[in-house]
């Protein structure tokens, strides 16, 4: 009896279920890369990921990766959209901030505007990564409403929030931000400085 070589999907699932070879600190990155490939297997891959949602509740990196994968789907029916919305909204309550922020990114990616109020209710979240993802969500789904929020966020005490605000103002081509950015090129945080410099160059050049 011949033994069939494991399929590519099986191989990916196996990798997903083992530890990240680069250690815990890189695990979010590792699992997202694998899930990105699993999603390409269509219904079979998606079924696996939905099953893993149940089994990986206490593994935030894998959970985060699954939510990222769900954000890449293209729901065709209202039922599919509603099911995805329900799943992602559920994870806005997660105790793991990077899971919450990934859920918000996926809600944005899927254009699920009906989740706006729920997302905005997290605007005082402890995690700056979550507050940053809210800025990305608003910039993508409600660009006009996002502008005052983004400008206000340029003065956030958290560098991650300032950085997100700068990137989104750049993407939206908001020239009104130029005077603020001129100051932020001297920000104490190196990433804020880099994002401000790039945004300033882009806005002045466009």
């Amino acid at each position: 009896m011949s033994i069939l070589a494991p399929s590519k999907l099986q191989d990916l699932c196996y990798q997903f279920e083992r530890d990240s070879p680069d250690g815990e600190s890189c695990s979010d990155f590792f699992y997202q890369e694998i899930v990105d490939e699993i999603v390409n297997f269509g219904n079979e891959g998606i079924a696996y990921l939905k099953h893993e949602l149940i089994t990986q509740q206490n593994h935030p990196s894998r959970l985060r990766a699954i939510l990222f994968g769900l954000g890449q789907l293209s729901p065709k029916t209202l039922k599919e959209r509603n099911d995805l919305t329900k799943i992602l909204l559920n994870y806005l309550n997660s105790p793991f901030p990077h899971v919450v922020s990934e859920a918000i990114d996926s809600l944005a990616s899927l254009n699920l505007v009906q989740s706006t109020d729920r997302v905005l209710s997290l605007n005082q979240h402890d995690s700056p990564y979550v507050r940053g993802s809210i800025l990305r969500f608003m910039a993508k789904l409600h660009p006009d409403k996002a502008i005052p929020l983004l400008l206000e966020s340029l003065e956030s005490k958290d560098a991650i929030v300032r950085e997100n605000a700068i990137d989104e103002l750049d993407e939206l081509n908001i020239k009104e931000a130029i005077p603020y950015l001129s100051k932020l090129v001297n920000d104490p945080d190196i990433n804020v400085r880099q994002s401000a410099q790039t945004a300033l160059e882009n806005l002045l050049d466009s």
Partner: protein
Amino acid sequence: MAIDKKNLQTVKKLLTEYERLANKYNLNISPVKLKQLDEKRNLGTIKPTDLFAKLRKEIPKELENTTLEEVKRMLKTM
């Protein structure tokens, strides 16, 4: 989607500031991957398809195989 200046600016940012952007998303790029990306960036040969999944999703399809060098050249003509 037509290729416009804004798209090219976005792609250039993703191809050069991936480490900062990964940090913004609370993702740690593996050291091996980071080294690969840095080498290609320094040569100007880095392409959107070289990036990690979270950033690849932000690239317009028309530009997914365009190198950093080509993006810079296109920006100069605009």
